[in-house]
């Protein structure tokens, strides 16, 4: 639940970033709703966005509505439906609609389509919705159109957002970069990752910053060398792959400010286009207001200075006055000393009194004026007679009346000698005269008698004082205001007085910015210079040289704080001049731009990154190139000069249709981003592919510039072509594979079958998507096959491993094929079963071949070991033969013969020798039994019984005999109670050895009733044994004879001379040799004209027929029915054709060509030396004849064609 809320919060954040909510109507959106309504043929269409509480309608068609509460909104449901549009055909009966029916325009909504508006991260912000009041449906074509329109809405939103976004935000740059160049890495000089493109993180979530790049990637290049060549301006395309090797990247490296920027492209991956983000750097709008304050401050300062100069004048004047006052005081002292003394003094006093500027007067205890001097009269504008005798209060200014009354009262009561006073008079013209002075009091009889006032006019001074005070207040106010502003600013505002650079003011933020206390700023004019980063000092000095001539500089440089932090600051400095044009104040503002600078540098890095990875150009609205980067030049082989001013179609390869470019122009001129793969032609005529994104820049609804960002995709396109070829190549291989091959889906349906699996194209195509049950049904065969294969398939699913089994395939001609089948699972990267591959290999042939190899090997080994023995033994036994062999044959031929002879002769000879010995022994026993113990009838019976079944149960295992004997004793002891246990045991054993079975009741009764039971049984046993040995001797003798025949047939008498051989006679002599085998068993049919004569070697022809006939007889041995040997010959003018047929089993077609190889034999044992048919081939060659083999189920036919001489 928490996660869902988080998701919703994120969604709303994203929505808010578009600043669309509660915005005014916009034509573009209204056009879209109108179009949507028309397409859907519905009365109402809306574009709305869903925030926390409501569905806010951006544009509506067919209804006036601005918002709908979320709980009533169908669109709220639509935005939660993943990717798919929400379609409600009948709202009143739709289970998804739980609320009461919803009304619009007083009608019930019956039909609704909501197509979610997804941003690039698949976050649904709102919907494009269609509403109708009758339940209905929408065609898929119309729905598709609406989805396209919905995408258009989103694009409109993106454009709108981009247009309104003018503030630099790293996020956005990142986003832009990530979309555009999704794979980049920024490393520091230790190759540790500083920044990662988001797509990299997406592709490989384990990537983390501050770790070495090599922890995540296998670099296929030397990074130091790559950086060096990048610094040298030689960029190369480099490759690396993720450590788990699942993705390989193509990359380029650039080095900027000790940072290594790797821009990469996943190989064979889609490149997404750039979004239209208007990226500008921060403007210093705030700064202007600070400058404004500065000037205010400066004007205040100006007034301050003016008032100061005024003050100086006043002060000067004051000191003059002070001087006068002191003089007067000295005079007064003098006066006081001499006042009441001499007339001279009086006169002198009177002169002084009248000469002074001070206002001097004398009043009595009632305040009546007794005397005033000339200055007094002059100041007050009266004549002496107008004043003397009148009250002084008459001349006191109304403002001071009260004050004067008070101090006059004091004067009366406290009796001071003198009193400092300060009040105002009013003169004849009504002017206020402010005075200060001293009243010297005279007392008589402790009563105030007289007071002499010495007063100075301070009106002017007071006026000045007041002005000064006011000014000072004003300045203070202004200064306070400024300081408040300054202190609230992060930027440091400062001023120094010229020409001595004494610090006038500096805001507190200097402490934060520079980390330097204010006192130092004030005391040391060089503080700012000392803070500058040594690397930037020279530049700052040169750039600030023009400050006094221009009156203004703007600098950006680094500073080093006492804590060794490096910060980027921007300073703006201004010179303030006085009215005479002389600079008296330097003021400025310093701002921390470290963050911005970092962004700028990063931006430069990114730009370089894009520039180094992508092909970038800008054209005007007509397609005239106004910018092209190096990559562009590199790939197009034009120089920048050649490109600028040219129309972009200079690169047109002529490959694309006119419509292709029309569509492109239509897209971009209407403000949309176009992307596609374009084949271009370079200057030298070579062609290349680029994945292009063209981004229009719009001004007042019209595109005025196009930015194209492209990636070279030639390799990718070529790869694609190569993949296609490879695919065809592998398909070709699979289709021609001589083994059954099939691919199954996880539910055991055929996905692929090769022609070896199913020959018939129609059936093969039919089987795709079907299973073996369908196959059985199609073929009309039992489902046993399908059940068996399904069992194997299930076993594979269960065991998760290869399953193999042997299978017998019945071919159309009825022949059996042994197939080894294997099926194996293939899993996808999540470990789920993806498919199952099955194949079958025919193993009958392989097994035969293996056996042949082993056999040939053994026989060759045997040749070696038995060669000596053969020579010693066989030369004695068949001197003539061995002589002819040693004389006429090469040693190889001897070897060939030896292999057959050794075993095949020794074995039968063993039997013959020992069998005859055994037979002799047995006959002796029989004779003893016969003479002494048995009757003639018993002998006849024993002989008859033995000859009926010679071959069966020649010998039986001892334990089996025991078991049978035990059964017999049980049977006998039950039936013949008059025998003892030991007798029964003995007689049971005799029964068993005589091979009489327990069910031969009649015979058992007969033997038990005879007086010589044991003897009779022994007789039966012996005669049987005898017969079997005689039989064994017979078989062995035949085998020995066959071997001898082989030897005979192998003689190549080089001395023999060609002669005219009568065919019929020659063949007849061969048949005579085989007489013992042919007799009774085989039906021989000979059709040869007496006249046919072959010019050839008599003996070799004899060998030829012998071998073929022998081969035929062996082939027919297994025949259950009739054995048929047909020999016929026909003659034309030039040829004689002899055909020998037998009705033995067919020779499998794949074995037919092997028949004529040496040591090839289809069966082991008896006389098969594997030589016969190779001899045939040699003889055929000697006679210049040809032999043909045809083998069907009915007959195997050898046809030999002789040319007539």
């Amino acid at each position, binding site marked *: 639940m928490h996660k869902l809320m988080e998701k919703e919060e994120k969604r709303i954040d994203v929505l808010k970033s578009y600043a669309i909510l509660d915005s005014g109507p916009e034509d573009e959106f209204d056009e879209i709703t109108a179009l949507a309504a028309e397409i859907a043929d519905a009365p109402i269409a809306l574009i709305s966005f869903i925030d926390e509480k409501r569905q806010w309608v951006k544009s509506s068609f067919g209804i006036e509505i601005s918002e709908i509460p979320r709980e009533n909104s169908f669109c709220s449901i639509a935005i939660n439906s993943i990717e798919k549009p929400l379609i409600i055909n009948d709202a009143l009966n739709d289970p998804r609609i739980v609320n009461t029916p919803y009304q619009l325009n007083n009608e019930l909504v019956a039909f609704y389509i909501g197509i979610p508006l997804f941003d690039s991260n698949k976050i649904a912000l709102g919907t494009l919705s269609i509403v109708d009041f009758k339940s209905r449906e929408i065609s898929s074509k119309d729905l598709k159109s609406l989805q396209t329109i919905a995408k258009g809405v989103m694009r409109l939103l993106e454009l709108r957002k981009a247009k309104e976004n003018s503030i630099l935000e790293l996020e956005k740059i990142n986003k832009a970069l990530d979309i555009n160049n999704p794979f980049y890495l920024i490393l520091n000089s230790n190759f540790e990752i500083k920044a990662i493109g988001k797509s990299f993180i997406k592709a490989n979530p384990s990537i983390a910053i501050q770790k070495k790049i090599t922890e995540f990637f296998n670099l296929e290049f030397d990074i130091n060398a790559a950086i060096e060549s990048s610094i040298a301006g030689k960029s190369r395309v480099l490759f690396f792959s993720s450590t788990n090797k699942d993705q390989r990247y193509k990359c380029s490296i650039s080095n900027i400010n000790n940072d290594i920027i790797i821009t990469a492209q996943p190989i064979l991956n889609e490149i997404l286009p750039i979004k239209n983000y208007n990226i500008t750097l921060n403007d210093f709008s705030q700064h202007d207001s600070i400058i404004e304050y500065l000037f205010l401050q400066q004007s205040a300062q100006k007034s301050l200075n003016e008032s100061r100069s005024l003050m100086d004048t006043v002060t000067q004047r004051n000191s003059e006055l002070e001087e006068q006052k002191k003089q007067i005081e000295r005079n007064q002292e003098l006066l006081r000393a001499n006042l009441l003394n001499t007339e001279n003094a009086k006169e002198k006093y009177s002169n002084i009194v009248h000469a002074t500027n001070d206002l001097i007067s004398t009043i009595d205890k009632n305040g009546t004026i007794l005397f005033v001097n000339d200055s007094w009269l002059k100041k007050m504008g009266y004549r002496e007679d107008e004043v003397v005798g009148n009250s002084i209060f008459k001349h006191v200014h109304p403002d001071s009346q009260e004050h004067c009354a008070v101090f006059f009262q004091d004067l009366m009561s406290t009796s001071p000698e003198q009193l400092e006073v300060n009040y105002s008079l009013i003169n004849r013209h009504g002017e206020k005269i402010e005075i200060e002075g001293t009243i010297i009091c005279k007392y008589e009889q402790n009563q105030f008698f007289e007071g002499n006032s010495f007063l100075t006019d301070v009106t002017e001074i007071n006026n000045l004082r007041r002005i000064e005070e006011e000014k000072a207040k004003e300045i203070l106010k202004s200064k306070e205001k400024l300081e408040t502003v300054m202190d609230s600013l992060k930027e440091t505002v400062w001023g120094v007085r010229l020409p001595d650079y004494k610090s006038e003011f500096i805001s507190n933020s200097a402490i934060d910015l520079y980390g330097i206390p204010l006192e130092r700023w004030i005391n040391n004019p060089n503080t700012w210079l000392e803070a500058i980063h040594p690397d930037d000092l020279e530049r700052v000095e040169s750039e600030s040289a023009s400050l006094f001539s221009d009156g203004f500089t703007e600098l950006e440089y680094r500073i080093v704080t006492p804590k060794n932090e490096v910060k980027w600051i921007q300073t703006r400095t201004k010179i303030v001049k006085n009215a005479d044009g002389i600079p008296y104040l330097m003021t400025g503002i310093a701002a921390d731009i470290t963050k911005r600078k970092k962004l700028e540098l990063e931006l430069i890095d990114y730009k370089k990154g894009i520039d180094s990875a992508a092909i970038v150009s800008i054209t005007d609205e007509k397609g005239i190139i106004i910018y092209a980067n190096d990559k562009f030049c590199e790939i197009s082989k034009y120089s920048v000069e050649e490109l600028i001013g040219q129309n972009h179609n200079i690169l047109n390869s002529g490959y694309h249709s006119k419509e292709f470019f029309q569509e492109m122009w239509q897209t971009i001129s209407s403000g949309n981003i176009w992307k596609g793969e374009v084949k271009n032609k370079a200057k030298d005529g070579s062609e290349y592919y680029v994945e292009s994104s063209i981004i229009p820049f719009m001004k007042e609804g019209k595109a005025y510039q196009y930015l194209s960002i492209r990636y070279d995709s030639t390799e990718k396109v070529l790869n694609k072509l190569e993949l296609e070829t490879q695919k065809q190549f592998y398909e070709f291989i699979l289709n021609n594979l001589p083994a059954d091959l099939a691919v199954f889906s996880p539910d055991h349906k055929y996905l692929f079958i090769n022609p070896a699996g199913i020959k018939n194209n129609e059936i093969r195509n039919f089987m795709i998507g079907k299973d073996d049950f369908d196959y059985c049904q199609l073929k009309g065969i039992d489902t046993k096959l399908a059940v068996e294969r399904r069992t194997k398939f299930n076993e594979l699913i269960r065991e998760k491993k290869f399953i193999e089994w042997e299978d017998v395939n019945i071919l159309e001609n009825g022949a059996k094929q042994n197939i080894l089948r294997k099926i194996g699972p293939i899993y996808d990267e999540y470990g789920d079963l993806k498919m199952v591959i099955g194949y079958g290999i025919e193993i009958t042939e392989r097994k035969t071949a293996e056996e042949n190899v082993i056999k040939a090997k053994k026989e060759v080994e045997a040749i070696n070991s038995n060669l000596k023995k053969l020579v010693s033994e066989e030369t004695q036994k068949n001197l003539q033969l061995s002589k002819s062999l040693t004389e006429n044959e090469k040693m190889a031929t001897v070897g060939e013969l030896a292999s057959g002879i050794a075993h095949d002769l020794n074995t039968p000879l063993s039997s013959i020798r020992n069998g005859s010995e055994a037979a002799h022994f047995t006959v002796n026993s029989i004779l003893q039994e016969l003479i002494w113990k048995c009757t003639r009838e018993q002998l006849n019976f024993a002989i008859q019984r033995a000859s009926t079944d010679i071959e069966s149960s020649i010998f039986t295992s001892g334990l089996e005999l*025991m078991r049978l004997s035990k059964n017999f004793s049980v049977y006998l002891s039950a039936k013949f109670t008059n025998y003892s246990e030991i007798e029964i045991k003995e007689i049971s054993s005799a029964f068993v050895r005589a091979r009489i079975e327990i069910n031969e009741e009649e015979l058992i009764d007969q033997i038990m009733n005879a007086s010589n039971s044991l003897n009779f049984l022994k007789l039966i046993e012996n005669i049987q044994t005898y017969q079997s040995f005689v039989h064994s001797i017979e078989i062995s003798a035949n085998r020995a004879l066959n071997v001898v025949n082989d030897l005979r047939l192998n003689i190549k008498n080089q001395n023999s001379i060609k002669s005219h051989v009568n065919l019929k006679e020659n063949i007849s002599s061969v048949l005579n040799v085989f007489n013992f085998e042919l007799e009774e068993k085989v039906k021989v049919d000979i059709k040869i004209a007496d006249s046919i004569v072959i010019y050839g070697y008599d003996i070799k022809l004899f060998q030829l027929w012998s071998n073929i006939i022998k081969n035929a007889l062996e082939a027919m041995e297994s025949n259950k029915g009739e054995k048929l040997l047909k020999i016929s010959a026909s003659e034309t003018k030039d040829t004689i054709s002899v055909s020998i047929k037998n009705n033995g089993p067919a020779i499998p077609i794949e074995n037919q060509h092997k028949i004529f190889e040496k040591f090839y034999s289809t069966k082991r044992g008896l006389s098969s030396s594997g030589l016969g048919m190779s001899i045939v081939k040699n003889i055929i060659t000697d006679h210049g004849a040809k032999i043909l083999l045809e083998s069907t189920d009915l007959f195997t036919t050898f046809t030999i064609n002789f040319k007539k001489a």
Partner: protein
Amino acid sequence: MTDEFKYAVVCVDDDSAILQILNFQLSKIINDDTVLIECFLNPQIALTAIDELFESGLKLIFVIVDFQMPYLNGAELILSIKEKYPQLPCIMLSGQANQTQVDNLKDNNLLTAYLEKPWTESDLKKIIDIQTQGYLSVK
């Protein structure tokens, strides 16, 4: 059942005629009711049968094995037998033996005797008599 047999002799040859002769000659030479003579056409079946004979408590006196056999030749069979029963005497019978393999057996003292085809009953008797000494009274 086996209480009557104390000993056993095993013959292996893929040729039934030879096996029959061997069976006959061995019963004649040994001529003792306590000796079970078991013959096998298939060497692999023989191998499992030998195990069974041992399990049933019989004392195996020797084994006679033909060299040339399908699936498992005589030399290979003897190697398999000796692996399990190193003390059991093995006699090789052959008309055509791979000398290397036989030599290999001889070199490792795995072969008690070697009887070449064609043999005579007296040839066989000489070998059997030595092997049966101490077990039975040979007649």
